[in-house]
């Protein structure tokens, strides 16, 4: 099952490389360990939210409320910790359940009442933003009491010790090796074509190189950030869900042809509600991490995050009409968005021009997508 690399995938990775080369040339600090660590932390919650967005874009839906929602959930958590004196863990659990409930409700309205997702979530965007400001009373609420770190603040401030970082990198490499061997064995057992050993070795070699290069680089600053570990776990889960469960297949089927999906026995309503409920959990996690990253909850947290998430998906090859997109593409798309933001901040480009640039990148990516898929249709 070798997959051919499409022109589109190639242009995406090439675009990322060009952006990296550009920033590393104009801004020497771009490739410093400190900056790469900052980028990794920012990437973690941007990409996690984009993974969630992928879940609803695949069946042809959309969610504009995730930015406000992430802000509100972070706000609720901070208020519970600071104003109500709750523990960080229980506050986060309550906020998580609230998010799952709200998003399942939006999913149910979309599935059963046939209200377009665009409208429901556009409304949600305003409702959540308003509730958010009410909850924090338009103040700035810190994520922790004084300098006592808690579970919430640690999400983006904790780093693995250098030794643990290397051990983890080693374990991950061994896992990659085992996965390759097991995959080949299984394929051989079922009588399928198996990659020749040098290809398998090359895969393993590249994977371990990337893992260790990253670990060494991070360790030169503070160590591997906890946030990146969370990103890896969420990314792996979403990958497994979208590719190795019936639920994931159904997401693609609904987005590709909902009528055929119904006649194939796909429980369309349940799948859509499930996708939104999962997105709700991810919105909560993003809300925690965004508040933690800023150190507090204030009125601007979550601003425009929905657009970054949608942009990351679209740049990563996700179709807005549904049926197409994958985790790896979304990760690359998120990386492009985060790199752009980080690079522009390093070059001290003002916020107004940053917004213009983000908007233009999104438009160009969609235009490229439309252009390339039209070509394919010929």
């Amino acid at each position, binding site marked *: *099952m070798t*997959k051919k690399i499409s022109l589109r995938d190639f242009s995406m990775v090439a675009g990322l490389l060009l952006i990296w080369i550009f920033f590393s040339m104009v801004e020497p600090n771009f490739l410093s360990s400190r900056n790469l660590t900052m980028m990794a932390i920012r990437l973690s919650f941007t990409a996690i939210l984009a993974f969630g967005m992928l879940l609803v874009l695949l069946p042809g839906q959309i969610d504009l409320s995730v930015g406000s929602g992430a802000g509100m959930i972070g706000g609720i958590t901070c208020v519970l910790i600071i104003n109500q004196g709750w523990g960080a863990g229980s506050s986060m659990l309550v906020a998580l359940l609230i998010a799952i409930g709200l998003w399942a409700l939006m999913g149910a309205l979309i599935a059963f009442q046939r209200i377009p997702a665009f409208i429901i979530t556009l409304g949600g965007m305003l409702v959540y933003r308003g509730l958010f400001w009410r909850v924090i009373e338009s103040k700035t609420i810190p994520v922790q009491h004084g300098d006592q770190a808690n579970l919430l603040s640690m999400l983006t401030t904790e780093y693995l010790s250098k030794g643990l970082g290397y051990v983890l990198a080693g374990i991950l490499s061994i896992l990659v090796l085992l996965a390759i061997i097991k995959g080949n064995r*299984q*394929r051989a*057992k*079922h009588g*399928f074509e198996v990659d020749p050993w040098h290809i398998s070795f090359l895969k393993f070699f590249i994977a371990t190189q990337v893992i260790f290069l990253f670990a060494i680089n991070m360790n030169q600053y503070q160590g591997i950030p906890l946030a990146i570990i969370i990103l890896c776990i969420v990314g792996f889960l979403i990958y*497994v869900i979208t590719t*190795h*469960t*019936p639920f994931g*297949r159904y997401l*693609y*089927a609904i987005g*590709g*042809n909902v*009528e*055929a*999906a*119904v*006649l*194939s*026995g*796909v*429980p369309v309503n349940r799948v859509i509600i499930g996708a939104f409920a999962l997105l709700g959990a991810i919105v909560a996690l993003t809300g925690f991490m965004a508040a933690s990253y800023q150190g507090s909850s204030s009125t601007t947290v979550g601003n425009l995050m929905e657009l970054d998430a949608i942009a990351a998906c679209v740049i990563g090859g996700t179709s807005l009409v549904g*049926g*197409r997109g994958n985790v790896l593409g979304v990760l690359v798309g998120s990386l492009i968005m985060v790199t752009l933001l980080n690079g522009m901040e390093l070059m001290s480009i003002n916020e107004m021009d940053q917004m213009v640039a983000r908007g233009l990148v999104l438009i160009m990516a969609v235009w490229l997508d439309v252009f390339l898929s039209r070509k394919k249709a010929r």
Partner: protein
Amino acid sequence: MSSSHKIILQVDRLTKTFPGVRALNQVSFDLREGEVHSLCGENGAGKSTLIKCLSGIWTHGSYDGTIKIDGKEAVFNGVSDSEHAGIAVIYQELALVKEMTIAENIFLGNEPTVAGIIDWNIVFSETRKLLDRYGLKLDPASVVGDLGVGQQQLVEIVKALSKNRKILLLDEPTAALTETEVEILLNIIWDLRKKGITCVYISHKLDEVFAISDRITILRDGESVTTLEASASNKHEVIKHMVGREITQLFPRRPTTPGKPLLEVTNLNVYDDQNDKKILHDISFEVKAGEVLGFGGLMGAGRTELIMHIFGAYGRRMNGNVMLNGKSLDATTPAKSIASGLMLVSEDRKRYGLILDQSIGFNQSLASLGSFLTLGMFIDGNREVKKNWEFFKSLRVKAPGLDSVVGGLSGGNQQKVVIAKALMTGPSVIFLDEPTRGIDVGAKQEVYELMNLLTDSGKAVVLVSSEMPELMGMSDRMIILSEGHIGGEFKRGEAEQHNMLEAAMKFHGKGNA
């Protein structure tokens, strides 16, 4: 009253080929000014293709032969050319904007303006005049979507006539109409005839054809068989010409001894809430293990609706009972039906059968993912691929591999993927709706052989087909539906085609309301 003998339109040896099919073969007929001329033929006889040539959808040069209007060769490079020549087509599917009023629809794209501003007074008063002229008691300001289907059809005809057309082509205009609406429509056509407008009328309903036609041309397998004067002919003669073909194709049906009944349907009455119409009336039948039951009938007789309803994808059950494998099946969703051992292969594989952007493997296993689970929730990729290969090979899908995108395959191979998907759910009863539509002869043979294999292994097949030879060749038993009723039931080899066509027309014009 009688039409002049001036030939207004002449079609001479028209031949239109599609890859692998000759849709029209040397078709000739002529239209006299002011006559009503009916075109009759079975499904697939070439009527629609002929209309498309006359309306400019198939442009000049895409067919052989000539079309002459008033003695001059007509060169249509698009629909607007044919409109300019005075030809208007009324299709079965309506082309009105449902949200707009009658007046807005009639003048759509043709609005009278003063300095760029639409003069609504003219729009409404002209519409009023037009409606009055054809005796339609409708308000120009009513919204089209609020009208009945029949009234919409009439509005569409008025719209076509508002542009001074002299030839009107009506393609199955009464398929969706009620009895009264049909009458109004026929009166309008009769009225137009008096005013010198020439009509080409396409219908399966021979009563209507004989009620209004001056002449009738019969098409069969893409050829014009004959043209009859309606007053000197009768229904039987027309039917004889419509079906009078040798069955040359091979139908390798191997009948088996039927076992116990697998699917039993009693007194099914089904209502279509969307179109506000009762679609199925008192349908009862059973299918036994090892049996192929065929459903025949004309377009709109309710065959597809029947199997889609039993499958859980269409209509509201007013009453009636369905038993599958001895258990009651009140399938409200296809998912439940599939779980109970029923599967459907739909007539429109692109719309209802396939996720075109996805791979063969994705499509094949989509309906049976539940059978490849490990740990209760993960798909065992190896087991899935292995099973997919099994079906890919046994159905001889011609493609590089399971990863090939379905949208790029030929019709026959796409159909095999849909059938593979159905078989992988392990059904005991399988519904095949037009399983050989648009696929080549070789693939057809493979589908037939597959039906034999299914019945050999004790499964039951329900075949819906519009091709009479296929239906008669492959079914052990046939039920002919007529306007949502059972029009007749025939055993294999017991029926002649004309008996069946008569059964299919049995309920025409009877209790449709």
